[in-house]
């Protein structure tokens, strides 16, 4: 009996203590500066090119082969041999484009986020933090706040290309610069940015300018839509799944196919990828497009106004 009373007393003593719950989306905990998240390619805003030199060391070291680097290719902005800046300026309206410290660039830099095991070895081996490359790692995992938005529907959507990889580092330019500065701050910067919230909430990656804070009403709408979208679809008599193509023709037509590279950031979204609003759709895709747009309407809650 005494032991039982002791148990009850312990439970009651916890009852009167302060709860430790952190209400996550409302209160975000501060991430330490070493936090490892999704590996990202850092964009060099000064020269408008990735920091990466395409040396492929990260490709080699990655134990799970989630990084694929193709290249390197020559960097057009790198000053050629016996480069005469004055002459160059004279020919180029007074602006010499050959200012890059990087002789080479990666042709393609792909990271399969789903396969990554966040070991951080790519960041460790990255050689671009040397003086001549600008003291900055090209591949960083140090931005954990971004990894929270990485949930997507299809695994393949987690393969990012150059534009997708540097997307965050462009959108969140200020924040990233602070984190990636020569001396990292004590506590990692918490990017509680509206862009991040918007991206997460609606499940749609926008182009940088489209990203903007969401109003409370929109958030609510998004939640409701998420909850009741299947119900709506049923009520409106829409098929929930698309019918398979009747014959093999559509197979080769590339209907609603893979988005082109420049579209791939948008292609991350389920809605757009399905909607077939990708250029070059064969005629067979029109119906799918119509259906897909309705679906996209549901998912992409606040379309471009």
């Amino acid at each position: 009996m005494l032991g039982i009373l002791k148990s009850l007393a312990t439970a009651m003593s916890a009852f009167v203590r302060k709860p430790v719950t952190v209400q996550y989306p409302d209160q975000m905990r501060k991430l330490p500066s070493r936090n490892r998240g999704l590996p990202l390619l850092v964009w060099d805003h000064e020269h408008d090119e990735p920091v990466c030199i395409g040396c492929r060391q990260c490709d080699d070291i990655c134990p799970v082969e989630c990084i694929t680097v193709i290249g390197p290719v020559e960097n057009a902005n790198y000053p050629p041999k016996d480069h005469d800046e004055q002459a160059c300026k004279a020919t180029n309206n007074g602006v010499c484009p050959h200012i890059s410290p990087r002789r080479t660039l990666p042709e393609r830099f792909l990271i399969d986020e789903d396969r990554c095991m966040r070991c951080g070895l790519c960041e460790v081996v990255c050689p671009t933090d040397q003086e001549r490359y600008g003291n900055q790692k090209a591949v960083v995992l140090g931005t954990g706040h971004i990894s929270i938005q990485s949930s997507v529907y299809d695994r393949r959507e987690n393969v990012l290309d150059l534009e997708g990889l540097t997307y965050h580092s462009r959108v969140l330019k200020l924040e990233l610069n602070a984190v990636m500065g020569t001396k990292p701050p004590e506590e990692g910067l918490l990017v509680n940015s509206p862009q991040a919230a918007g991206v997460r909430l609606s499940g749609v990656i926008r182009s940088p300018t489209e990203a903007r804070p969401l109003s409370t009403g929109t958030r609510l709408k998004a939640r409701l839509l998420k909850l009741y979208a299947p119900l709506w679809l049923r009520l409106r008599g829409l098929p929930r799944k698309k019918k398979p193509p009747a014959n093999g023709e559509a197979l080769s037509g590339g209907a609603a196919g893979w988005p082109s590279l420049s579209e791939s950031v948008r292609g991350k979204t389920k809605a757009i990828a399905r909607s077939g609003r990708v250029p070059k759709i064969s005629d067979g895709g029109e119906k799918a497009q119509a259906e897909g747009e309705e679906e996209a309407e549901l998912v992409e809650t606040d379309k471009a106004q």
Partner: protein
Amino acid sequence: MAEQQAHPGQQQATLVAPPPGTVVDIFKEVLSDIELTPYQTAGDVAIVVQREDLPRVMKTAKEHPRLALDYLRCLSGVDTYKELEVVYHLYSFRHKHSVQVKASCSYDEPHMPTVSHLWQTANWHERETKELFGIIFDGHPDLRPLLTEEGLGYYILRKSHPLAEIEEWQEDYLKLAAELEAKTKPAAAAAPAAPSEAEDRAAKVALAQKKAAAIKKARDEARAKGLSTEEEKAFVQQALRAVEEEEAKRAPVAASAAAAPTPTEDRAAKVALAQKKAAAIKKARDEARAKGLSMEEEKAFVQQALKALEAEAGPPPAPSAQAQAPAAAAAPAPPMDRAAKIALAQKKATVIKKARDEARARGMSSEEERRFVAEALKKFAAEQG
């Protein structure tokens, strides 16, 4: 790195003799008539014994009061490219000394005496080693596969077993992107694949089914006879053993019938085939995704493709000339394709850059800029196409 470390003919470094006063001396005293090769590892002292001597050595190690190695720490299998080794790490709670015992067997006759009657912990270790290395421990009470219930049929931790390819999503992605841009029509989903593994699996399944039937029959019989649970179990086991023996008798016949390919060749061929098949599946899946099929439809589609492949590869050694020709044509294609792709991508990159610069010069917003670039790309693609 794998090539460097895994040189079959590479000589092992010379063995360092252990310093005097270790547990090896006791071993030598106690087992003076047995040939023991002691050496010093970076941790414990080790002795190499002959397989024939192993039961005696181990029994003595456990039961001799001066050794009293009553704790089996670890039992590992090692594939040295020349033979299979089993390494035992022993520890004595009484004398606080530890030793490493090593014995080896050949690939052709992968048998080792069990030690599970001495240390019960060896039971699962030996089951696991049997499963992963194929070393059969004679006298073990229960050598069922441990980690995979039905057994794999091949030994994954042997060095001859290759590490499976990881699916390459990136490659897919590149391929798809290039295809879409170049407006090339995807090739028909006809790649040769062989049902060899499937057959193998089917045989296994059939065996399991047979076994299950035997078990059921035996159990029914036992119940009808009114045996106790204990007896029933024994009865069932007997029946099972009978089935296994029968199967084992049949196996050599089958083996001799299909003796042409050596096991390793067979294995390699199987792996190659499986890879081919995986490629086919991947392709079919990609196509299905590209078409925007739902999950279930996709599955069905893939299955259909697979079935088609199997049907096609039904008579493997007699492919039609038609089937061969595309294969031959497809073979040299990838490298060319790749180079072309790179060139195309480079060209495209310049187009993008140009367009972007122009857009910037015109002072467009990012959104407009994107659109502009996309248009430029479209134009470029049209030119190419």
